[in-house]
């Protein structure tokens, strides 16, 4: 295998080809922020489907964003950016005000550092080319947390009554009793296996979140960008679309209306294990998995 020699073909996700006959076309999200109305249906749809605990009630004063960031208990996050800038360069300028909204999510990187560093094999590449934490394997070691260039991975606290204030009735929503594990978007792995699209994409009222085979999404995004550019939209650009970028492109990529950092996204993300060299970073992981799995299996016995 070419990956063993450290020569990944551009844009091919690590580990995907190993599925052989079981391999499915790589799928992902194209999030088109030019039609996002900031309704947060994606946040709720995700939580409803994945039975994620409430993430706490804190009013931030940051526009309409009271979610803050992606976390173990928030796998879709809508960012709100208020700007004094016209939406289109050809606007008459009288409004000169725009409100950008963007639904962020795990990027399902082509070269995913979280995958590289996970010593237990909890993080794995699915047959759909997505990156998933397996809740039955994760032991909460947390190696993956600093590895993610986007800060997506996060450990879930063990719920305490402090989180729910004086509403003890709320406790049942914390369905998972034991925790401390890492949680993130699975691209609705279970739904994919059942032939359904991810919950957020299905809910999205304006189809700002589009799900599909990555090739199709790329073509759609390119067409979309060309249209917006022709219409003079200010700052329209694709983000993580390019397989040549520092993470080999992403399974979840975006059409933004300003620079990535405006949305709180790293402008030039790099797979954090890159300095190890692809062969060695992968080998390191393989060895670690072997060790942990054997130990784990013995322990289970």
């Amino acid at each position, binding site marked *: 295998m070419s990956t063993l020699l450290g020569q990944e073909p551009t844009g091919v996700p690590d580990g995907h080809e190993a599925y052989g006959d079981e391999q499915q076309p790589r799928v992902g999200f194209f999030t088109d922020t030019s039609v996002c109305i900031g309704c947060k249906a994606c946040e709720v749809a995700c939580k*409803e489907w994945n039975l994620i605990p409430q993430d706490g009630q804190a009013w931030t004063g940051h526009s309409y964003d009271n979610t803050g960031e992606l976390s173990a208990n928030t796998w879709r996050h809508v960012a709100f950016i208020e700007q004094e800038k016209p939406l289109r360069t050809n606007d008459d300028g009288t409004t000169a005000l725009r409100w950008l909204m963007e639904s962020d999510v795990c990027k399902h990187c082509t070269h995913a550092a979280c995958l590289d560093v996970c010593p237990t094999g909890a993080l794995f590449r699915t047959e759909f080319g997505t990156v998933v934490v397996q809740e039955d394997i994760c032991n909460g070691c947390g190696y993956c947390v600093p590895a993610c260039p986007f800060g997506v991975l996060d450990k879930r606290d063990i719920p305490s009554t402090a989180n729910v204030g004086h509403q003890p009735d709320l406790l049942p929503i914390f369905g998972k009793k034991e925790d401390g594990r890492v949680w993130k978007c699975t691209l609705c792995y279970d739904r994919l296996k059942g032939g359904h699209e991810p919950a957020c994409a299905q809910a999205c009222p304006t189809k700002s979140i589009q799900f599909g085979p990555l090739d199709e999404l790329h073509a759609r995004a390119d067409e979309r960008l060309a249209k917006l550019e022709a219409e003079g939209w200010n700052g329209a650009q694709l983000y993580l679309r390019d397989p040549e970028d520092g993470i080999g492109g992403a399974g979840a990529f975006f059409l933004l209306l300003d620079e990535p950092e405006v949305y709180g996204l790293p402008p030039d993300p790099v797979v954090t294990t890159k300095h190890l060299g692809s062969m060695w970073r992968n080998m390191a992981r393989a060895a670690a998995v072997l060790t942990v*799995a054997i130990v784990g299996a013995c322990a289970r016995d």
Partner: protein
Amino acid sequence: MKLRRLIASWPVVHQLKNGDRLALGPAVKSQRSHTLKPRIHDADHVVQSICPYCAVGCGQLVYVRDGEVTHIEGDPASPISRGRLCPKGQASKSYVQSPLREYKVKYRRPYGTRWEELDLETAMDMIADRVIETRAATWQAETEGGNPANRTLAIGNLGGATLDNEENYLIKKLMTALGVVQVENQARI
């Protein structure tokens, strides 16, 4: 036999068997990941419903297992919503199963300082009595000018915009027969 299954399930064996030598993919796929399926596939039945929040009228699919709603999502067949829902509609299951939902009748007696329990049948009977008594005590057969009035102005009924047409129909029908004219809802306009 048991031992062989156990050994076969070891990632190391997987790794060697299927060529995922880096243990990034199939080699580390867990038992749960192998058997995972969407919980809506376990539903006993699914019904087509309509979102209870605003008046857009989005279609919903309500999945049920063992008499409990297990999931609500958009109904793709709806020509209005095409399977999409807003955050409220998407949260309908959490609304139906709200941690604050009340399941029992609660009764507060006049000047009482706390809620008390009350049997549903008893409550219904008491409410029927209250309606009958208030109506009898405040009945206005005629206006001061001698025109027919046939009513009580001492009872009112409020609400309806969140209810079903059939429910509103029974409310107005019953209240009209009772001579209760102060029937109002959110749809003042």
